[in-house]
């Protein structure tokens, strides 16, 4: 689950999940909500008409890093690049996978190049500010994004 929390200048999100993979998936879900929904009302309801679902495509992104914190921020910023520069309107994060070379990938479902699907805001980047992933029974992290 994700929860947007108070941050004076920007937007911060607290993420909780049952596994590392789910934590990374939740991070991308939070970005999807910020870009496409109303983060204050947690309104991530389907804004796409039924017939557009036929236009959905699968794509993937990847990132690498020295540790999970770098991988998480890297993956989130790859996601932002895909959406804000490549015109991908995200719908779902399907799968997160880690490899032995310090990399992580995410399979995504969404729609490309539909200019009638507008993002609600621009997000400059996910930042490394105070980022510490806490693992255990519940995986947790707080990410601050510059908007």
């Amino acid at each position, binding site marked *: 689950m994700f929860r*947007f*929390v*108070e*941050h*004076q*200048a*920007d*937007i911060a999100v607290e993420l909780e999940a049952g596994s590392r993979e789910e934590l990374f998936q939740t991070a991308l879900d939070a970005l999807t909500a910020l870009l496409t929904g109303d*983060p*204050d009302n947690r309104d991530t309801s389907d804004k796409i008409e039924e017939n557009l679902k036929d236009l959905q495509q699968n794509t993937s992104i990847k990132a690498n*890093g*020295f540790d999970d*914190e*770098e991988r998480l*921020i*890297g993956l989130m*910023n790859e996601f932002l*690049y895909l959406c*804000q*520069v490549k015109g991908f309107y995200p719908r779902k994060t399907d799968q997160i996978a880690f490899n032995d070379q310090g990399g992580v990938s995410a399979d995504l479902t969404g729609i490309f190049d539909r200019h009638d699907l*507008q*993002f*609600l*805001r*621009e997000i*400059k*980047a996910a*930042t*490394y*500010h*105070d*980022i510490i992933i806490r693992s255990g029974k519940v995986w947790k992290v707080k990410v*601050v994004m*510059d*908007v």
Partner: protein
Amino acid sequence: MDKEKPLLEQITPYRWRLSQDYIPGMRVPGEIIASEKMIPRIISDNTPKQVANVATLPGIVGASMAMPDIHWGYGFPIGGVAAFDPDEGIISPGGVGYDINCGVSLLRSNLLANEIKRDIPKLTDALFNQVPCGVGSEGKIKLSSQDFKQVLERGAGWVVNQGMADAEDLEFMEEKGALSGGDAALVSDRARERGGKQLGTLGSGNHFLEIQEVKEVFDQDIAELFGLHTGQVVIMIHSGSRGFGHQVCDEHLKIMQGAVRKHGIELVDRQLACAPFKSSEGQNYFSAMKCAANYAWANRLAMIGLIRQAFADYFRKSWQDLNLTMVWDVCHNIAKVEDFNINRKAMKLCIHRKGATRACGPDHPSLPIRYRSSGQPILIPGDMGRASYVLAGTSEAAEISFSSTCHGAGRIMSRKAAVKATGRENIANKLKQRGIYVRSRGRWTLNEEIPEAYKDVNEVVDAVDGAGISKKVARLKPLGTVKG
């Protein structure tokens, strides 16, 4: 740390010291410029902690400073100023920010507010239609790869070369609208892609362009040198390097995560990631940052071209006949190598300003002849409901704050809280009742940017004036505002 000791020690009415033993690892003390009234909020926001964090970075000189518009950021605080010895110190992308060379331009005019009062809504509409703004907006300027290279290396000079602005504009821009030494070859394809379609666009969030009235003049002589007088219409633009700058910062922050390990730098916050200034990582970032800064100057000047066109079309006069000329352009997110006297020794320092403005005093060699006796103009955008300001730099600023001053009002309320506070309120109507006409593209922009979300800019400006690092020249009242 003695728990009885106050967190901040007052040195002068507007200067507060944060002890060097506030947190382990501080190499210098912190210093905050603020009025006594502002201190409780600054402490409750925990921003002294970020001032202290910056003070742990290698090679920092003097003090880790904060201006009165300080607020919690990520890594460096917003409103932070830090100077580093280029031989032993670092450079940090987080000390500049994602929006490299976010800054402000101000145009004067020969229009009077009371004569064009009824024109303001239509004029604002004209600007809204002429200057691309909002999330995902694309510019009207098509850049070839050669053009892009020129933008990154020549900055505002490229815009003049294209006939979109006047050569004289460059005389009245910080660094004449370009930092030399930006190597476009060091910029990634991804950054080019991210910025390629955005030249000449305003952006969103707290970026704006605004028709204003000079409401009050505090220093008649300096105002005259700046070409300002009461009742005059001026136009202010607040924007930066758009997605290009964001991408440059993100890429180099990632590189710096590895650089700190390579160079054995310990960080209290990963967003402070940095590299020795003279290292390859440091110099590559500095060069790419200059490219982004140059992009921002070109961006603002390109928009000025569009604004002049909108005014010319509306009034059916040339912009020259309307005297829509540049007062000044400042940047408030930047790192530069500047000259200072530290303990009577001339030194070059790598100064980081993140949400802070340069404040060069009289006789500074970088200033055009027109401003040599006054000091540079400093442009302080407030919120969209209250005021903006024009200040002048002082000689004292070089001694006190590395020739730096505030950059704006500073947020006190999160975007989430601002939206919650406004509910379904129609902010545009509320501002209209106050005589301010607003056009905005974003669904939540106006709610997030309500005046109450910001510190009172009057207090911020009084603090820098009281501290002696800037001098009040004029107060500007918003008349018509365009936001993304």
